[in-house]
């Protein structure tokens, strides 16, 4: 009794401290309580500390997990990690609390007569393999699909790709990184011919200005934002927040500039106009290292099933580009962007000043955009025109949302068009994959099939009869879930979901496979700055919960592909990584050996001659540069980065008389994406228990809406009822409402539109038209 009261009291004290810390995090963006991490460590504990990356966002903070008697009992920031230097955010140091959740999936569940029945894992895997084989036999290889995640480890993504593309022979593999990062990929490929940022987080220590484009870093990348605030305090670095909503990042910035949704395209062009008009172009850089191109215009929005688009790039010259920009003078753009002429000129002057170093940061605001590829290109244009790129403190930097959107989705290539090196459309890339995988080259199809949105449309149409969803929760995170939830419930498709916890997606599964969490398996993640990080298994998973990689291998073997998946259960992570590394050998993308990753807190690729490459394309830092110049954009055959002529085009759906508000959706600091993990962490759940709909106070007043009142938000697709939030977490501009998407009980994605960028196929979650009324 004494023990239980004491334990309860000590638990309550911890909860009280966590409440205070969470409250502080709400008030001060980027606040860090490093010593809090030590408080959770039991007295006289004999902890074994193991290093790894954080389970949550794409920053990729290094963590140390303290284990005792086979249980994870403490987490602290890894002081040896150059990413976070020992700091963590509120999600980071609470992360292990979710794995003890009472509703943890510990056994396989198979739906029989409408009810889930606990089933031995081996039997469930037999069923999964037989259903896959049955579907292929009856309806062909393209009737089966796999939908994975930017939270999948590198070995998980690699085995998924090898199983689908190399063994079965279908390109029906895509992942949730399509929903967050695809526009960044196509932006990099079209401008530079090679994916992922050229710079690294050390840029923060050198930049004079940080311009954040539609990016609430204080809540989404808090540790990086705290590093920026430190530079602001120490060196007087300035933060300029350019967004459609006032957030904690805006209030902590030196200047907040608001723009009308979608008009970032026009403002970016206006900045380039000003740079040229004022003679701020770095002429020698542009002449030596850049070319100019234009693509097709009026390219559509992907709203119809089976939408197809292929761009047709055409070379232009600087003069033609200059003429094109005449439509984007600050005076013209100010009229529809709602950004003043003065503010456009202010932004241009920051980029144009040759004595100031500038880093641009962005994430979902630019990527989840029906012209996502274009806006990525346009921000690159600004940096290319001024030559502010690939140098410490100067560069465009696309941040990732998920812990391995880069390492797994983009580098391993769990997209329909990708291979671990290159793309399925390229014969040489297919030959390389076939050689390493030891499969006939003609087994790998040369045409991509379904990107994420189209994959679930195909499920709805009955074109996909088997789908395996791994480490993601699409029935909360897809746009227009009002269509895709009923689609996944159809009998025409057998649904397998592997996850750690029950979710609205496991609710529609025919088989639920219990997955091991992050530290219950070994693996590797790759973060936003090209850093690959390894961790070893730290604790056992409960019950029959198993690493996803191993479940993929077991199913592959049951399907008759034993010879292609010869890995051992004990060492499969190491064996798979060593096989995968072969795809990237060389100075342009060499991956660090596992021995190095075991010792160090990650290494940045290209890893050449025992060294990480921090700034690509700059001959001073990057050994892959071979043109005897200062810079070499070697991703393009001519070694030149492309400055793209891309116009402003409107959003597919805008507020009108019937649906008079813009709807913007996003995230909050307390919760990780769809909340399946963080809502099981009591202190985070208490701090942010449910979603809400934010109003501008003037809109709330004119509609007579009070704080906390239930409001029905309705679009042409569906509706969602949430409490109103006025002058609380964020402040949308007039005529706009904002809703976070973490809450499975308030599914705002029933309301959103499944339009996407025709080049990247990434949906736009930031703009559609809605009406609001009291519920």
């Amino acid at each position, binding site marked *: 009794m004494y023990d239980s009261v004491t334990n309860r009291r000590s638990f309550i004290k911890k909860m009280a401290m966590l409440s205070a810390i969470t409250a502080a995090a709400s008030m001060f963006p980027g606040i860090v*309580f490093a010593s*809090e991490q030590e408080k959770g460590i039991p007295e006289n504990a004999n902890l074994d500390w193991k290093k790894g990356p954080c389970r949550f966002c794409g920053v990729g903070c290094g963590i140390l997990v303290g284990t005792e008697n086979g249980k994870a009992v403490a987490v602290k920031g890894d002081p040896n990690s150059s990413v976070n230097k020992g700091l963590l955010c509120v999600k980071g140091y609470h992360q292990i609390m979710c794995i003890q959740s009472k509703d943890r999936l510990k056994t396989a569940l198979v739906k029989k007569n409408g009810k889930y029945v606990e089933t031995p894992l081996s039997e469930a895997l037999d069923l999964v393999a037989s259903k896959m084989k049955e579907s292929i036999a009856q309806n062909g290889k393209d009737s089966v699909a796999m939908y994975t995640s930017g939270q999948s480890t590198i070995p998980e993504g690699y085995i998924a790709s090898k199983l689908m593309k190399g063994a079965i022979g279908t390109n029906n593999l895509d992942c949730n990184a399509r929903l967050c990062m695809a526009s960044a990929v196509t932006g990099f490929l079209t401008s530079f011919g090679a994916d992922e940022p050229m710079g690294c987080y050390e840029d923060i220590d050198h930049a004079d200005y940080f311009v954040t484009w539609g990016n609430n870093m204080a809540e989404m990348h808090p540790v990086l934002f705290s590093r920026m605030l430190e530079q602001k305090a120490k060196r007087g670095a300035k933060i300029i927040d350019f967004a459609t909503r006032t957030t904690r990042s805006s209030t902590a910035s030196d200047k907040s500039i608001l723009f009308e949704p979608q008009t970032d395209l026009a403002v970016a062009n206006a900045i380039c106009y000003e740079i040229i008009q004022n003679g701020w172009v770095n002429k020698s850089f542009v002449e030596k290292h850049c070319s100019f191109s234009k693509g097709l215009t009026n390219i559509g929005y992907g709203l119809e099933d089976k939408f197809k688009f292929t761009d047709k790039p055409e070379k232009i010259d600087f003069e033609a580009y200059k003429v094109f920009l005449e439509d984007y003078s600050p005076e013209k753009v100010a009229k529809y962007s709602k950004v003043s002429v003065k503010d456009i000129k202010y932004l241009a002057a920051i980029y144009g000043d040759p004595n100031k170093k500038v880093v641009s940061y962005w994430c979902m605001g630019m990527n989840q955009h029906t012209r996502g590829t274009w806006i990525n290109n346009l921000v690159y244009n600004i940096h290319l025109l001024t030559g502010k790129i690939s140098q410490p403190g100067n560069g465009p930097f696309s941040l990732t949302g998920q812990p391995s959107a880069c390492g797994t989705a983009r580098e391993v290539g769990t997209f329909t068009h990708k291979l671990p090196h290159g793309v399925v459309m390229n014969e040489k890339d297919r030959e390389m994959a076939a050689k390493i995988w030891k499969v006939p080259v003609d087994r790998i199809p040369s045409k991509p099939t379904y990107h994420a949105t189209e994959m679930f449309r195909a499920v709805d149409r009955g074109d996909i009869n088997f789908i395996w969803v791994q480490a993601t929760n699409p029935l909360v995170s897809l746009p227009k879930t009002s269509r895709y939830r009923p689609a996944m419930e159809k009998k025409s498709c057998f649904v397998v979901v592997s996850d750690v916890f029950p979710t609205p997606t496991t609710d529609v599964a025919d088989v639920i496979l219990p997955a091991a969490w992050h530290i219950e398996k070994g693996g590797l993640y790759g973060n936003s700055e090209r850093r690959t990080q390894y961790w070893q298994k730290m604790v056992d998973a409960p019950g029959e919960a198993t690493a996803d990689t191993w479940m993929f291998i077991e199913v592959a073997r049951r399907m008759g592909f034993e010879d292609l998946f010869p890995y051992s259960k004990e060492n499969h992570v190491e064996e798979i990584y060593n096989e995968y590394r072969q795809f990237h050998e060389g100075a342009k993308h060499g991956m660090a050996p596992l021995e190095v990753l075991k010792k160090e807190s990650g290494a940045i690729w290209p890893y050449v001659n025992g060294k990480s490459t921090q700034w690509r394309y700059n001959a001073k830092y990057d050994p892959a540069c071979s043109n005897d110049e200062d810079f070499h954009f070697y991703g393009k055959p001519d070694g030149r980065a492309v400055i793209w002529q891309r116009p402003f085009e409107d959003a597919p759906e805008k507020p009108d008389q019937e649906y008079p508000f813009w709807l913007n959706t996003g995230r909050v600091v307390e919760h990780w994406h769809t909340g399946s993990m963080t809502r099981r962490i009591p202190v985070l759940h208490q701090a942010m228990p449910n979603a809400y709909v934010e109003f501008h106070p003037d809109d709330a007043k004119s509609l007579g809406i009070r704080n906390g009142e239930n409001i029905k938000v309705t679009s042409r697709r569906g509706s969602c009822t949430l409490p109103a939030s006025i002058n609380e977490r964020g402040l949308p501009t007039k005529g706009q409402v904002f809703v976070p998407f973490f809450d499975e009980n308030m599914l705002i994605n029933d309301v959103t539109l499944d339009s996407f960028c025709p080049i990247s196929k990434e949906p736009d979650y930031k703009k559609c038209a809605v009406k609001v009324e009291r519920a």
Partner: protein
Amino acid sequence: MPIKSYLAHPITGRKEELMTALISLGQCEVIPAENQNILALVTDTQTEKEDEILKEKIEALSSLKLLALVSGFNTPQ
């Protein structure tokens, strides 16, 4: 047996002093923010009366600018 948590805002430049003063009062657990002028504070007392007295002592500290209550719990004796 009240347990309460607060955010304690020190007077500029006196964060360390406030932290030392709070710890020396006893019944206080303090965690300073690394990069902001603020302390997270948890008080743990036996009775409501004791809690009131402790709060008065905290509020009398000259290095304290503002004390903001975040949460309060009461556990059985």
